[in-house]
């Protein structure tokens, strides 16, 4: 959009606004992150975006840390910090005030209605995240097969997901995925 602006400010308002629309959590906003970072601002390539997702999943801490990686790729350490804070602080402040409001009047049934209304939205958003990430990372049929196998195993068994990431990494290293 405005390429003359300081990229750190662009990060701040992009993620600050996005956080307020991340219904259901950080993973719901992945399609929007991809749209902004790859398609609109050209901060990263598809491959770099997929790598950022992979690194954030391999790291400890909440899923939201993919924005730390996006921020770093735009403006180094300052970008990493600004993107993380922009994605976390606005909703944290909102949560603080809403929780104080609700403890005072907990008779309302609106929270339950809003929650019920948001559940299908957040699942739809997560589904879109899955699709967009699959399109960016699965470039060969073997890659698609690995994704499908991980999805089925994680759905049907209680295997620690770390093993699947490890297996994916090994297959990648062996050059199977291409």
């Amino acid at each position, binding site marked *: 959009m405005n390429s003359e602006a300081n990229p750190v400010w662009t990060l701040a308002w992009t993620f600050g606004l996005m956080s307020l629309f*991340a219904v*259901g*959590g*950080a*993973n719901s906003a992945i*399609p*929007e992150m991809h*749209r902004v970072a790859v398609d609109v601002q050209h901060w990263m390539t598809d491959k*770099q975006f997929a*790598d950022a*997702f992979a*690194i954030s999943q391999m790291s*400890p*801490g*909440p*899923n*939201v840390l993919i924005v*730390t*990686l996006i921020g*770093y*790729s735009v403006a180094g350490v300052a970008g990493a910090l600004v993107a*993380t804070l922009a994605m*976390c602080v606005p*909703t*944290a402040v909102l*949560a*603080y005030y*809403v929780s104080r409001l*609700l403890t005072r009047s907990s008779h309302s049934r609106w929270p339950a*209605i809003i*929650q019920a*209304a*948001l559940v*299908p*939205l957040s*699942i*739809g958003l*997560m*589904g*879109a995240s*899955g699709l967009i*990430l699959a399109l960016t*990372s*699965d470039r060969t049929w073997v*890659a698609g097969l*690995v*994704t499908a*196998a991980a*999805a089925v195993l*994680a*759905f049907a068994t209680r295997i620690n*997901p*770390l093993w699947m990431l490890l297996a*994916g*990494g*090994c*297959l*990648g290293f062996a*050059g199977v*995925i291409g």
Partner: protein
Amino acid sequence: MPTESPPAADPAPQPPTTTPPGLLALFVAFAQVSLAGFGGVLVFARRAIVDRHRWMTADEFNETYALCHFLPGPNIVNLSVVFGSRFRGIPGSLAAFTGLLGPPVLIVTILAALYARYGEIDALRRILAGVSCAAVGLLISAVFRMAAPLVKRRDLVGLVVLAAVFVAIGLARLPLQAVLLVAIPLSIAITFAMRRRALA
């Protein structure tokens, strides 16, 4: 990355604490939860808050989490702030928030620097490509797991809303804000109308 010691292994179960946690205790507890929490911090947060420290009962925890889940943004970050404020006001929020985010942000920033420097190395590229394939599969399985209750209850309205959002964001690639500014009021109105009809 998993930690070397399992997070819930506390050999001597302590009696329920009556004194609210201090700022340092909040910071340390959320830092531990965050560093143990690989792929999902929530499980570890529940274990630490309910089982290990007994700062909340399971019901209190569920209520707090439900609130944080219906608010936008990273749920667990919201939880840390709400939780910290219950015991120590705004300083408590800050302690829990920095505990949760500080250490992992430091780690991820270091990884980002390493990636910026060595990301083009062929072996690393291949490994990351493999990891991301598997990671996407895990995310997709989470989607199916969350959608399963809707299918089971034959929640047709919910499934239509789910599909509409999926198409708008995933296929049409429309901006998130635009889609949600239409979808949120619509979904709330439908849910409200359905509940009234069910009551009538």
